[in-house]
């Protein structure tokens, strides 16, 4: 291969990488109800935990405000919401998630609620090393009608590199993670829950939620 041929090959490779790297996400889910409703505020209900780790619900709940707020939504203060449920005798996430949408709308004044189920959390799922895995499912429900506006699932692992983000919200994650590590006594699973929450609930991702009214990208998707 002559240097010229190498050059051409490299240029072609760069073009291909650029094209694939920035390809518009393939939208395969139906956004019709989402587009009609256009919620402004989201109530994140305490996540139901199916993992053996008792920190799972708190870990996911504490991380979910970030992707939702940065996507342009008002997120009701999650700890205050959790307290409100507890003070009203709804002590478990399952009980909170069983409240009728209309009732939730009346109490919290939110347009939509995010129902999350944590399916994996912590290190108990791996055999080879002490990898932390967090996986969760979620659905966004219109609190006026009870209609499901969006649903999705995501997972992340501490064994992955964090360099798979690129621009956008995933790029922000790196900052967020660094802040948490510097921040204090947080555990690996909590950090991984941050990645999972972004993959799950950030706009601008394939099959993700749409941007909300507080985002500069509102209505661009």
């Amino acid at each position, binding site marked *: 291969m002559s240097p010229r041929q*190498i*050059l051409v090959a490299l240029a072609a490779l760069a073009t291909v990488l*650029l094209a694939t790297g*920035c390809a518009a996400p393939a939208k395969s889910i139906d956004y019709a109800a989402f587009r009609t409703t256009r919620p*402004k505020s989201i109530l994140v209900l305490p996540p139901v935990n199916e993992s053996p780790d008792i920190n799972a619900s708190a870990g996911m709940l*504490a991380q979910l405000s970030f992707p939702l707020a940065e996507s342009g939504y008002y997120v009701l203060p999650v700890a205050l919401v959790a307290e409100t449920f507890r003070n009203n005798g709804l002590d478990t996430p399952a009980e909170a998630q069983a409240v009728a949408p209309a009732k939730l709308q009346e109490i919290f004044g939110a347009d939509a609620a995010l129902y999350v189920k944590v399916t994996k959390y912590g290190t108990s799922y791996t055999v080879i090393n002490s990898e932390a895995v967090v996986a969760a499912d979620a659905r966004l429900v219109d609190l006026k009608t009870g209609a499901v506006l969006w649903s999705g699932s995501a997972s992340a692992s501490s064994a992955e590199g964090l360099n798979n983000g690129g*621009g956008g919200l995933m790029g922000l994650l790196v900052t*967020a993670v660094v802040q948490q590590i510097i921040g204090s006594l947080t555990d690996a699973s909590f950090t991984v829950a941050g990645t999972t929450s972004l993959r799950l609930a950030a706009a601008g991702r394939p099959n993700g939620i749409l941007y909300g009214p507080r985002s500069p990208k509102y209505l661009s998707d």
Partner: protein
Amino acid sequence: MHRSSRTGLVLLLAGAAVLGGCAHRTEPIYQWESYQTQVYQYLQGQSSDPQKQIASLEADFQKIRAQNHKPPPGFHAHLGMLYASVGKDDQALQEFQTEKSLFPESTAFIDMLLAKANSRKNSQQDKEKTL
């Protein structure tokens, strides 16, 4: 330019193009500081020392304001809840009002909480009167 160094340059440029190609990087809307960590610790029941959490969030807020950024949704409401838990009702009220003015979407929830707190206080005062 030597041929091998030119190939190196081309490689470098190609690499930069690939890395930079998708960097229409989004600026964050909010400055988060330790909010998520504070929420996590609160939810885990590590709120035995709310004063320490208040101090952390107040320090965060100074930092956020100094950089002319915005705290995230829930930040002031969470701080208000911590103030209320240590009996500093005036500061709690102020934080809840700040949350409302920054985020009018919170109005219904916060007004409901304040109304409940008021009615509890009133019924307590009534009890004291009757005793």
